[in-house]
């Protein structure tokens, strides 16, 4: 076990694992990493299982001091930084000794990076998960982001590290970011037209966006104003409220929603969606269920191949 002191927490750094599944019927959000692919990549680079808690870094990274040895991997958004005066660029595997200082500098692309440490970062299990849900104040460190002066624990020391694959910067995506969507459950002509409107516009992620969802500006999507009875939603669902500004539901989404669920981003593309932030542009392409599954199998194969090396 190695203690890690948080000198500076960064803008929004939270402990995340694969999410709080199984309690949505009690209204508990799933939460978990915004970019689940990079969370898994960071974990496998230090030999962790996929559910080991990582630190999700947002826009600006933390400044950490390790009080013992630890194997570290950083994946996701491309950051530069230093460890003990040696420079690094993510994705990267680093070895910390007692007294090592890990700092983050400039970010080249993407918004969220994942810091994995061999054995995982410790946090109490809340409803089966250590994922931080800030809005519901669940998981992580008392349901809040890291703060300056916090102390973390890494639950292990000697973990095998894997070399960083050359294609690990895969999420470097075109501008606008293109996400594949399937038609959502909302029936009817109005929803059909709204779906077509989603496919023919470029949207901007608005500043109001957060881990719950992205408010999309740039084009108004037509939908009728008929009130709808609350129904379950899923991560990736694109809701269209009567005012016409779509909302893409992300990791901390509520369990149910009362707006028209017009479309849903396919699971294979959610990690790329998770790298978007305010001001980024995105566009949607139509996708069918079969193609969605093939895309997911392809991204899973990439991770399994890395795991097997």
């Amino acid at each position, binding site marked *: 076990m190695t203690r890690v002191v948080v000198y500076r927490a960064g803008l929004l750094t939270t402990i995340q694992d694969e999410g709080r*599944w199984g309690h*949505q019927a009690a209204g508990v959000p799933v939460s978990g990493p915004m970019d689940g692919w990079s969370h898994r990549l960071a974990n496998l680079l230090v030999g962790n299982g996929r559910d080991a808690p990582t630190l999700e870094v947002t826009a600006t990274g933390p400044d950490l001091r390790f009080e013992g040895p630890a194997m570290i991997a950083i994946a996701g958004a491309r950051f530069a930084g230093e460890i003990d005066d040696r420079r690094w660029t993510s994705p990267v595997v680093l070895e910390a000794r007692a007294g090592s200082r890990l700092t983050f500098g400039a970010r080249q692309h993407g918004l969220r990076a994942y810091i994995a440490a061999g054995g995982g970062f410790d946090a109490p299990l809340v409803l089966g998960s250590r994922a931080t849900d800030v809005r519901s104040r669940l998981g992580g460190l008392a349901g809040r982001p890291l703060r300056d002066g916090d102390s973390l624990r890494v639950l292990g020391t000697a973990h095998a590290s894997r070399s960083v694959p050359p294609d690990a910067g895969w999420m470097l995506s075109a501008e606008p970011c293109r996400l594949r969507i399937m038609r959502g459950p909302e029936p009817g002509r109005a929803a059909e037209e709204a779906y077509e409107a989603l496919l023919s516009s470029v949207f901007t992620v608005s500043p109001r966006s957060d881990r719950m969802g992205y408010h999309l500006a740039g084009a108004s999507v037509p939908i009728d104003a008929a009130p709808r009875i609350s129904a379950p939603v899923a991560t990736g669902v694109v809701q269209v409220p009567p005012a016409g500004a779509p909302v893409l539901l992300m990791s901390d989404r509520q369990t149910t929603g009362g707006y028209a669920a017009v479309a849903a981003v396919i699971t294979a593309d959610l990690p790329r969606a998770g790298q978007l932030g305010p001001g980024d542009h995105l566009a949607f392409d139509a996708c069918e269920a079969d193609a969605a599954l093939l895309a997911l199998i392809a991204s899973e194969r990439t991770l399994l191949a890395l795991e097997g090396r």
Partner: protein
Amino acid sequence: MPARVTPLGDSALLVAFEPAIDASLNARVLSLAERVRARRIPGVRDVVPAYASCAVHFDPLRTDRAELDAAIGDAMAASAAARVADPAASTVHIPVCYGGPFGPDLEAVATFARASEDEVVRLHVEREYRVFMIGFLPGFAYLGTVDERIAAPRRPTPRGLVRSGSVGLAGRQTGVYPVDAPGGWQIIGRTPLQLFDAASDDPARLSPGDAVRFVPIDPDEFARTARRRA
């Protein structure tokens, strides 16, 4: 009544009936959810019932879709006979201190109802409500249906902070905020009970299908109950 099974993205299915707020339809949804859950199909991560629909969340890489589709088909057929349970079987009593600092919108609701505050309280406690679904916040129960005379719409501007335990009205729905949160429901009172406990494996005090009755208490009793809890 026929239900539609549609994709909710590629990692969830939505079983949707014709949307309505209706106890027997909701009982059918709950029965369907219970039956799908009971099959314990590998890869299924969550089964989430609501008013008139139910989502089944699954990992597409670990789930046998043919098995899942068959389970949903069986559950839909078997749940057709579901009936509303005897309401006396599981009635939860929730003590509420109405008005004043506990219910800042009681006056507004009385104005809406063209009635006294006491009359609004009487109409709110008179009925037994059904928990139709949990959503919006951890442990937030949507209860119905509220007497039409006090069915005031949501506040035009939501509050930045609604205290946990606050009892709200939104049209013909009523509910209790289990945690501090922003919200737009008309707040008419507050309960000293804790309705969500993340430390429990069964964190929400109320479950869909439960019957709920509100019991008026005075500020002294509110304080006593809150102290016992602390």
